[in-house]
């Protein structure tokens, strides 16, 4: 009877009531997110109808996919036999048969391990750049990687990349000798002179002297498929960022000559379509070079693609530089840092951080632009499609081939986009 003794107040809280069924669980989520108002409900229904429309066509097509067939006609026969005469289906047998070609082009089969190894090592080299938690010593491998990848992909003497790397050492030597001079521009100038002298006058005779030890050489003609896209894309990405940083700094420079060159370069490149540059690389250069020179076509394309995206990169980074408050520049100056120190320690880390979305945007654009090389006859995945379709067995196919290439590119570009989002979260660019 204790309850009757204390009628005025509760001694314990009532247990919380579960929220009404319409506000929790699936129903609640649906009400809150999809049917919160009449307009929202209409949009939801329209979106569902659209998804259904797409799925109802794509799903049976995928579900009826044929993986084992020798020709398109056989595919159609199998689909008709299994699913009835009117059924449509994907003939993915072509992907199965041409998978290696899509990946490696006409690269010699016994050397497939080389691009594969280079591809795996690429992630090892990228890891310390992408994730700051990894030991910094791994960066040395990242520096070696471009030469290593070149040697793995094209083969030839191991001394070619080594001698070329020695040019950087020569440049480093020049930089240190020049650093003693009082004028700031002497060091980079001397570095450039040392390196160029090495590359143009010493490297070639030296390579001829050294023994020819290495892998079987592979010609650029044999490159193709996705490997070609990745080679051009990754090289372009790797070189366009530093080049873009230099161009952006040059454009803001007080040195009139440097500024004029940078502005002229950036505006010229931005005013010319990539296709035009590729056609120049492919045909015009050959006319103007001395006869007999064989300037590698892929190298030419890589140079053009790199220059092209470097100009865009420069503008993206210039945007980052412009967004930095003036106080950052003045603060760096007040600390007594010289131009290169201030740029390296204060300005660039912040400017690059702001520019991440724009930089990744340019990267993704560059990677997708590599398909334009199909125009100048390189057999990248798009170029290969024409060749595969011309084969009697696969003549007439459209969706399977283009769809497959689209999925390949989507995976890569989506990966890059996801990484940039991770980096943005980590560096918190929004509350700077």
């Amino acid at each position: 009877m204790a309850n009757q003794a204390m009628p005025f107040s509760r001694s314990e809280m009532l247990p919380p009531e579960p929220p009404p069924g319409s506000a929790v669980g699936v129903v609640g989520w649906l009400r809150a997110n999809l049917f919160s108002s009449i307009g929202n409900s209409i949009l939801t229904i329209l979106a569902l109808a659209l998804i259904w429309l797409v799925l109802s066509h794509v799903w049976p097509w995928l579900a009826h996919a044929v993986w084992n067939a020798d020709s398109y006609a056989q595919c159609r026969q199998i689909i008709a036999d299994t699913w009835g005469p009117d059924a449509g289906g994907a003939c993915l047998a072509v992907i199965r048969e041409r998978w290696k070609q899509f990946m490696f082009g006409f690269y010699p089969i016994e050397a497939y391990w080389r691009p594969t190894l280079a591809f795996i090592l690429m992630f090892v080299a990228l890891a310390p750049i992408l994730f700051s938690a990894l030991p910094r010593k791994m960066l040395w491998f990242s520096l070696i990687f471009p030469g290593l990848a070149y040697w793995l992909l094209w083969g030839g003497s191991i001394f070619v990349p080594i001698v070329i790397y020695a040019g950087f050492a020569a440049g480093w030597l020049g930089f240190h000798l020049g650093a003693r001079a009082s004028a700031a521009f002497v060091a980079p100038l001397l570095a450039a002179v040392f390196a160029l002298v090495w590359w143009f006058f010493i490297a070639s005779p030296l390579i001829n002297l050294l023994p020819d030890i290495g892998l079987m050489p592979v010609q650029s003609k044999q490159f193709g498929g996705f490997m070609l896209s990745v080679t051009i894309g990754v090289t372009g990405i790797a070189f366009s960022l530093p080049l873009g940083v230099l161009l952006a700094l040059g454009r803001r420079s007080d040195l009139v000559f440097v500024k004029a060159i940078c502005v002229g370069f950036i505006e010229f490149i931005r005013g010319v379509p990539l296709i035009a540059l590729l056609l120049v690389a492919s045909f015009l250069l050959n006319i103007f070079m001395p006869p007999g020179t064989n300037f590698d076509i892929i190298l030419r394309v890589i140079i053009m693609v790199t220059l092209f995206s470097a100009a865009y990169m420069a503008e993206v980074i210039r945007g980052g530089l412009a967004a930095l408050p003036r106080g950052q520049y003045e603060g760096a100056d007040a600390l007594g840092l010289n131009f290169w120190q201030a740029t390296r320690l204060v300005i660039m880390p912040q400017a690059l951080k702001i520019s991440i979305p724009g930089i990744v945007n340019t990267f993704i654009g560059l990677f997708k632009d590599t398909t334009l090389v199909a125009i100048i006859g390189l057999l990248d995945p798009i170029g290969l499609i024409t060749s595969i379709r011309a084969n009697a067995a696969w003549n007439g196919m459209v969706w399977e081939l283009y769809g497959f290439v689209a999925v390949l590119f989507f995976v890569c570009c989506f990966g890059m986009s996801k990484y940039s989002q991770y980096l943005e979260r980590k560096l918190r660019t929004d509350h700077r």
Partner: protein
Amino acid sequence: MRHSLILGTTLALTLGAVSAASAATLDEVKARGTLKCGSNPGLAGFAAPDANGVWHGFDVDVCYALAAAIFGDPAKVEFTPLSGETRFTALASGEVDVLVRNSTWTFSRDVDLKLDFVGVNYYDGQGFIVSKDLGVTSAKELDGATVCIQTGTTTELNLADFFKANGMSYQPVPIQTEAEARQQFLAGACDSYTTDASGLAAVRATYPNPENYIILPEIISKEPLGPAVRHGDNQWGDIVRWTFNALVEAEELGVTKDNLDEMKNSDNPEIRRLLGVEGNLGGMFGLSPDWAYNAIKANGNYGEIFAATIGEGTPSNLARGLNAQWKDGGLMYSPPFR
């Protein structure tokens, strides 16, 4: 003034160097060890790489024969796939030594673009394909039709000429590739698709219901397709011309890939000269006496190549027609080998 002078001199020197280089294409090819042949990146029956990257087709077989004639080994050829827009620039700039890419021999290409077409390996013509539902049986009934047409080719100009000459109107639907044409035509975006007749049969065979489409009987243009080389190196032009002629001559004389070695013992002086048993025709342009023997050995004579790549029974399923030997009422006629 001075700048333009320097520029002009440089340009003149460069151009001089280029023509000097082209004067000795054979030496260049021999020094390089491979023949660079410009090919179509993919045209059913004419040129396409298989799953192992080996090129097959009617056009590329001419390149194999040429490589065999020069080196005695048909494998010593590199193919450079070229698009319709870039093919002639690639040839002019020295990117390729010879262009065998179903290119039509026309006046302006021969004269203005400074090319030499050294022969015709396929006499083609432009045709139309329409759906049966359209109820048309002749190209002359196509007044007001929408026509899918590949841009940048002679077919575009022929189409305009044909409709103008017959006082009809049409609506062009420009397309870039055969893949695009297929999708547009099958979706009904155009009433008719027009291209070289050699391609139409192969294209029709790949449609879901081939029996619903007909190829109209009219052939509205002359499209002599042939190998081309740069102006200015007549020796090289002769090599390409006569290697092709050797394939045609071999068919006329009944020399095939299989009986090639028996034919060396033939009493027929024409065969003996062709195969290099008698005289030394090859030496006249810097090749070995058995150059034609090697060329025929690569993929057989002209008729054998035709039958294996685009002839009846293949997916292209083309009759010899104009491309038959002159003795059979066609236009294939090789000048004598003597």
